């Protein structure tokens, strides 16, 4: 299993998002809002999950990055807090799980 330093994870996710959402790579930053700023819709989230599985050799088995409703601040919508960094963190944790079980 290859090691994935955090900056490598981010770089790969940046190119996945840029390809899947047809946005310039430069505008994808850790703080970018995936839905509200980068324009993802439901089908894109599936596409992004699929690309993540292939790129990082992960089996997400249909469990996608999701936001627990209790983590959403009052008066906010999930799309207003869902950032690229959340995807990076999700992938990081999945990679660690995979490493632990290997």
């Amino acid at each position, binding site marked *: 299993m290859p090691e994935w330093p955090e900056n490598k994870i981010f770089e790969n996710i940046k190119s996945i998002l840029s390809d*899947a*959402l*047809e946005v310039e790579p430069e505008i994808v930053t850790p703080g970018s809002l995936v839905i509200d700023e980068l*324009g993802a819709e439901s*089908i*894109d989230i*599936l*596409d992004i*999950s*699929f*690309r993540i*599985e292939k790129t990082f050799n992960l*089996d997400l088995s249909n469990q996608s990055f999701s936001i627990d409703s209790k983590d959403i601040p009052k008066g906010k919508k999930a799309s207003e807090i869902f950032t690229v960094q959340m995807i990076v963190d999700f992938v990081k944790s999945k990679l660690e799980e995979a490493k632990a079980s290997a």
Partner: protein
Amino acid sequence: MKNRVVISGIGVVSPYGVGIDTFWQNISTGRTAAKLITGFDVTDYPVRFAAEITPDQFNPREYIENKKSIKTMSKATQFSVVATQAALQDARLDKENLNKERFGVTLGVGGVGAVDTQIFSEMILAAYSPEIQENMVDRENIGQIARLAMKQINPIMPLQILPNMSAAHIAILQQAQGSSYSIATACTSSSQAIGEAMRQIQRGENDVVITGGTDSMINPIGLMGFNMLGVLSRNNENYLKASRPFDSLRDGFMLGEGAAILTLEELQHCLKRKGQIYCEVIGYASSSDAFRLTDEPPDGYGSSRAMSLVLEDANLSPEHVDYINAHGTSTVMNDKTETIAIKKVFGDYAYKIPISSTKSMIGHWAAACGAVELITSVLALKHQLIPPTINYEKPDPECDLDYVPNRARPKKITHLLSNSFGFGGQNACLVIKKF
């Protein structure tokens, strides 16, 4: 009192390229769109030519503004979205002069035609990938194969296959919030779509309907399927002349592909906004042979009944028809039966009507053939010029009508009839009238 319906815009993506001008320039001068297939390896295929749309003729990224949407579109959907943009631009219809809730979409679509090469290869490759081979316990168990293949295929794939996706993309991109229908009756699909769109406007349900059809069967599966049914010409050596409707040496059709889109509009709506009017759509009728899947009844009772009914719907007598754009596939059976059916309806006058099959040039667009042939008819009416049946060299005694051989013919045209018949036995006819 029924509302009157006019055609106010047309758009086409064809094997001549994108746009009406290049389309008419080629059709009216009798040039074939036949090519040797380059989209995939046809080395071992018994048929190696088609009227194919090549990548240098059509690059969706050049035309579709919402780039992200392209990945969810099959080739047929890409064609239809671009042809729609062209038709709306031609009609000068936009958000400013439309009530989006009375703006609908009714399209003729293919079945497997929506599945293009890439999707199929991905599925097949996935099924044979090492991951699947290793895990596969039972080769006969299709459920197991699908479960394993699922992990290898991008989840957006099913959205490319669904037959209603062309209409859905068009509705989203154009904000057409009226009714949306997709009609799949093989080669009759788009003529029925146009007819049903006309009815929606007649009944007052919509002001404007984006209609027509799209199909892309020039892929390994489509080519294999039509070839297995024995309906394709195998004249690889002389492929430029392979499609030869009504000629005695015809041996099957040439596949074509593309999208042909028309905007049908309620007459007063169009007049009020000072839109252009190509012509009026005054008749539509449909019937079913209820006979056999791929054979037509020898006396053409189903297709002749559709022609009789469309004359009734248009309130015309046979002598009023100035030109028939035939279904004319270039198969032995269709051209013979269509000739018999025309004679049955038109009697002696059948010999006086110019009849042509533009499939001789652009091939058979399957679900989209009726739409591209209606657009051809609209242009024939506009230019008062009948496009020819090319490659007509050796008359068949059983096809003895005037097929406008090889050269376009100027003629005063007021009423025009277009025929479409499909596997399964569906027949549809449309009549348009000079405005």
